[in-house]
């Protein structure tokens, strides 16, 4: 495991290799944040690429101790730029993302039949669709906490806010999703009980 602080120092000194080592370490969470924020793999790919370019351009101004929340913040900003661009597009767009349709395929599961897999897929689409209805700040907090498993403190650092605000955004986001998912929650509860 490379020493991240040394890589950051190298990148700040202009080493592309050092920066690319940081990319290797963090590209998966950054891409997944973009994927869940935008709901489309094509848009997420563009946003993640923009985020890494932006991070490289501004690595000189990174003064903190933790690289990951700084990078996640840049990735979230790239997503917001993408959302703003979308907002300027016509309401009906041929390339509008279909929620959840870009999810990776399920791992082979011999126990689950095709019907169960279809149901799981449908649920996941509903969850992604409900996620996309949240305001961006709540969406970011919920994705980082529940999908990616970040601690409140790291989310607060990435969002440049207090832990209390993060707690509140997560609660409001979950509550909105609860209302949005409605009866589906019974299904989900049943599935997770099994």
């Amino acid at each position: 495991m490379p020493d991240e602080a040394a890589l950051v120092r190298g990148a700040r000194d202009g080493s592309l290799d050092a920066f690319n080592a940081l990319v290797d370490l963090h590209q998966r969470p950054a891409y997944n944040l973009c994927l869940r924020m935008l709901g489309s793999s094509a848009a997420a790919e563009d946003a993640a690429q923009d985020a890494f370019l932006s991070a490289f351009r501004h690595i000189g101004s990174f003064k903190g101790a933790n690289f990951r929340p700084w990078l996640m913040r840049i990735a979230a900003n790239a997503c917001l730029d993408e959302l703003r661009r979308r907002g300027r597009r016509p309401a009906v767009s041929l390339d509008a993302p279909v929620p959840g349709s870009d999810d990776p395929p399920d791992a082979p599961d011999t126990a689950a039949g095709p019907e169960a897999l279809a149901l799981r897929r449908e649920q996941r689409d509903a969850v992604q669709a409900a996620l996309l209805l949240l305001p961006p700040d709540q969406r970011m907090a919920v994705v980082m906490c529940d999908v990616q498993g970040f601690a409140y403190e790291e989310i607060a650092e990435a969002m440049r806010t207090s832990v209390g605000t993060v707690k509140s955004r997560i609660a409001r986001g979950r509550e909105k999703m609860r209302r949005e998912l409605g009866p589906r929650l019974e299904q989900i509860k049943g599935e997770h009980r099994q």
Partner: protein
Amino acid sequence: MKKLLAFGQHRPDTEALSALLDARLDAARSATLDAHAATCDACRARFAELRAVRDSLRAMPAAETPRSFRLRAADVERARPVAAPGGFARALPLMSAAAVAAFIVLIGAGVYANSGGSSSSRNSLTAYTGQQAKTEAQSAAASAADSAGKRIASTPAANESDLGGAEAPTTTQGAAAPAPSGSGASAPTAPPPTAPTTAAYSDSAAPSGGTHDNAGLWWYAAAAAGIVAAATAGAALYARRKRDGL
């Protein structure tokens, strides 16, 4: 925890339940809430639903990246111009502040020149302001300055000087605005018809040199437009950098 409603029921405290789900309540609060939920169907049901929401999100698979996001040398070359912080980017907020300060000084000078300053001091202020308007508007916001210049005076010479940069700005200004040396009466420039109010104010405020002061006011307007454009551009860039956390 208990927010009392009209009929003796209470609305579950979602924020507390959500924090309890993440084990982010302190021990005392957590124990109180647990004890309450044991006897409260509404809170128990809400807690179970919030947990289902969280579980459904946790069940979302982490996708593999479709490709590597490693940067190539070509990407980096494109990114280079902003790679080094400092310099122009770092000076932007300062430039904005300077532009705003200059704007305030110019407004002050304009007020002074049109309300009781001596004729000679008015002339020199006019000359100074005209020149500064030209320089700042050109360097900071060419388009804004251009449109402002067109509003100031419709003589071809003035417009040409707006586009033409540094060549003989003083001479050209002399044609557009009254000559700084006080020969305003001999080179009158009619105020544009689009600003009757300002012209009227200027005339009544300084009846002895009305035409001269009118033109001076228009130079102030030009300077103000250029400076405001510069300040706005600087502030926008600064806000964007700040938003990026950089």
